[in-house]
């Protein structure tokens, strides 16, 4: 146990040195580190609880995704049957599917063949998965189309991906520094913004779907008439500013997807805040055609199913640009232009968890953590010296290397250090010495049993090894489970605890043994000073 070949000893020292060196970037300013090679720049990231900032967990409204898919399917059914000139009645969304009744029995086969074309095979990870996007069930004249679960799951996945892109654009437009945006589970997105103290505006911006449509106002009835009798099939009643209601056609002239730019500004005459926008070429053409055909009639600018304004078309708008005015404040005009530039979310998002830490508390926590770490380390170092003397000093060297190695590994992983993470390190200091204690107590025992100094040291190390492994593996299992189930700060604790266990195995067992072996070789002790 006490014999090391020269190569092995060099390997151990080199490992310790290299891992410790990885911790270096944390002790220099960011500017100084920038000049280093890129692989050496990795450093520990402070968690939001230490540097302050806001963390929002958003959930994509999967019910809305499902509903939209059904609505789209219903539209497809309508178009398909009309194109094939098949008469039908009772097209409706029913539960999880779309139902349609074919009028003439002779058309049923033709209709089901045409409708089957709406169903595409889904591709899995390894080519075709054998599933199709829509299940079709023919029962007499009644045809039911149900989107398959796999298709809905895929749709939700796409919706989350798109949402992440759009959130990124919105957050960047707000000028926030170093945000991280990542997927969590199947339908969630975690947005973390360091340094953000009041996330109200961010939440307001992220909470808007920002689906912008230009549609015609339905003039066939007044809103009151429609409310009193029935709303025309192709129109709907939407709210406007100040409780006003409008009857708006469902058909969309141009949608927000055709916008290429939106900027806040001021109206030249009234001087009130507006948002001016520009369409792409196809949007401009569609808008030109629509305005040419409807001069003198009002059209509506609809944002998230709410009418922002409903101006009358005075002349055809051919240039592909225009402006939206709607009693905005400057901030609202600003936000709206950000939303329009970033694009619409595929489905509404809800904030389901928020954790914000102010910079004051963050700094206090860092100070408290550092303070506790120093005091804890000092107490342990002193205690070890008093109890084991020279061997206590060896253990203390091992623990110091251990802490540096934890920082090194954390830096290599660019891991996040949280306050519970600091607690994990302080605790590691406490238990790292446990391995040393196990070894030293064993050596004391072997000495009492009458062994010679060297033989006792050797036996102490070899017999303690099994115990050290068993006890550390059990703690490591607990840390692994914590990492697996935990989020945020708890995960930070699990990371430092887990890494601390691994590095302490190396320092307490291997490194201490190397030091002791060297000491034995140089001093050739007759008794063990322990």
């Amino acid at each position, binding site marked *: 146990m006490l014999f090391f070949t020269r190569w092995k000893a060099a390997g151990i020292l080199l490992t310790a040195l290299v891992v410790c060196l990885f911790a270096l970037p944390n002790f220099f300013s960011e500017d100084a580190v920038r000049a280093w090679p890129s692989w050496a720049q990795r450093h520990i990231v402070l968690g939001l609880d230490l540097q302050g900032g806001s963390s929002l967990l958003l959930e994509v409204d999967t019910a809305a995704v499902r509903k939209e898919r059904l609505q789209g399917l219903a539209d497809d059914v309508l178009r398909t049957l009309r194109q094939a000139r098949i008469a039908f009645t009772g097209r409706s969304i029913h539960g999880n599917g779309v139902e349609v009744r074919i009028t003439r029995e002779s058309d049923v086969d033709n209709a089901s063949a045409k409708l089957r074309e709406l169903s595409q095979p889904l591709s899995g990870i390894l080519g075709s998965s054998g599933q199709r996007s829509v299940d079709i069930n023919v029962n007499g004249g009644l045809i039911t189309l149900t989107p398959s679960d796999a298709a809905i799951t895929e749709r939700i996945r796409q919706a989350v991906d798109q949402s992440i892109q759009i959130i990124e654009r919105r957050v960047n437009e707000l000028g926030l520094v170093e945000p991280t945006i990542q997927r969590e589970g199947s339908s969630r997105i975690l947005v973390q913004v360091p340094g953000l103290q009041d996330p109200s505006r961010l939440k307001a911006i992220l909470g808007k779907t920002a689906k912008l449509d230009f549609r015609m106002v339905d003039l066939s009835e007044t809103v009151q008439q429609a409310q009193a009798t029935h709303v025309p099939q192709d129109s709907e009643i939407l709210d406007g500013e100040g409780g006003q209601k409008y009857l708006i056609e469902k058909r969309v002239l141009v949608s927000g997807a055709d916008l290429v730019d939106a900027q806040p500004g001021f109206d030249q005459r009234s001087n009130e805040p507006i948002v001016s926008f520009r369409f792409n070429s196809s949007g401009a053409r569609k808008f030109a055609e629509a305005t040419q055909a409807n001069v003198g009639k009002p059209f509506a600018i609809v944002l998230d199913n709410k009418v922002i304004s409903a101006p009358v078309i005075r002349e055809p708008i051919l240039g592909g640009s225009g402006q939206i005015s709607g009693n905005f404040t400057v901030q609202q005009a600003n936000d709206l232009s950000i939303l329009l530039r970033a694009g619409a979310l595929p489905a509404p998002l809800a904030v*389901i*968890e*928020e954790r914000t830490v102010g910079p004051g508390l963050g700094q206090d926590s860092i100070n408290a953590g550092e*303070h506790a770490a120093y005091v804890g380390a000092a*107490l342990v170092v002193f205690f070890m010296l008093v109890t*084991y003397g020279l061997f206590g000093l060896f253990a203390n060297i091992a623990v110091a290397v251990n802490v540096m190695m934890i920082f090194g590994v954390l830096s290599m992983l660019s891991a996040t250090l949280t306050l519970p993470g600091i607690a994990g390190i302080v605790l590691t200091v406490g238990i790292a010495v446990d391995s040393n204690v*196990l070894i030293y107590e064993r050596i004391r025992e072997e000495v009492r049993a009458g062994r010679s100094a060297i033989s006792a040291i050797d036996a102490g190390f070899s017999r303690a090894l099994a*115990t050290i492994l068993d006890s550390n593996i059990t703690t490591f299992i607990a840390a692994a489970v914590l990492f697996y189930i935990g989020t945020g700060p708890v995960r930070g604790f699990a990371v430092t605890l887990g890494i601390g266990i691994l590095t302490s195995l190396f320092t307490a067992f291997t490194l201490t043994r190397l030091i002791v072996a060297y000491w034995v070789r140089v001093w050739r002790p007759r008794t063990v000073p322990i």
Partner: protein
Amino acid sequence: MRLLRIVPDDTRFDFMRFRRISFPISAMLSIVAILLYFYHGLNFGIDFVGGTLMEVQTKAGPADLAKMRGTIGALHLGDFQLQQFGAPNDVLIRISEQPGGDAAQQEAVQKVRNALGSEVEYRRVEVVGPSVSTELLSYGTIGLVLAIGAILIYLWFRFEWQFALGAMIANVHDLVLTVGFMSLTHIDFDLTSIAALLTILGYSLNDTVVIYDRIREMLRRYKRMPMPDLLNASINATLSRSIVTHLTVSLSLLALLLFGGQAIRSFTATMMFGVVLVGTYTSVFIASPILIYLGVGRTRRGEPEGTEVEAPPTAPQAPPSPPSSSKAPPKRAKARR
């Protein structure tokens, strides 16, 4: 230099005798803890029941709790609590979950922010919606169960099944007592508490494993020593290590408790109780004696008188290292009584 010996070299405490006291006491305490859990309850934090937690610091002078209570009360947000938190100008506001889903929680926070205005600094705002809180609770519970299961399987591989079972009983006992402690002291029970419970589990096992390791070693070496003596010898042999280790862990925990700040105080207090008080007691007075009842070494007495395996072959010149082995015969009669 004379080194500190916290535990004398040759202790021969008869720990096994205490099992007639420790088992009933532990059983009673466990029942009390369970009753506390059901009748006194845990102070579930917003992580598990949803709601809002705000830590604010008044900018001018100490916080006027009564005035703040009035301001927030006027918002009609249902149940809320105000609590001094550390410094006199530091206040913790807890608002219960609002009816009406995730959006309603957000509105409530906004209302409080508007009402308190810029007189205070918002040090921390946490909002957990109903969908997240139920998940967090189930994840937490699953995590604990998974951890216990995984550790059990590991111990089962490394030792005999009786050891795994004994360790499990001991550790469930630890967790139950700690939960009882948390109920009694009304410490916030949140995600970090789950972390604390898992760490207690890890440490307590760590300690138990160290003693079990020694018991296994002794079982192999002394084929004829009666179980109670063997267990006593094992515990005495590891006693010094147990105490030294617990002192170092206590020292680092103490530093965290005193200087680690409010944010992790409930975490460290729970750890202090679980690791230092309960964990040590359990491995000595519960985990080890329970092996007698679980039947470890029961077959030994029926064994024909075999040869006693002495010290390991690596050191033939050494006498048997555990000191109590030579004193075993006189004790044997006592233990069988």
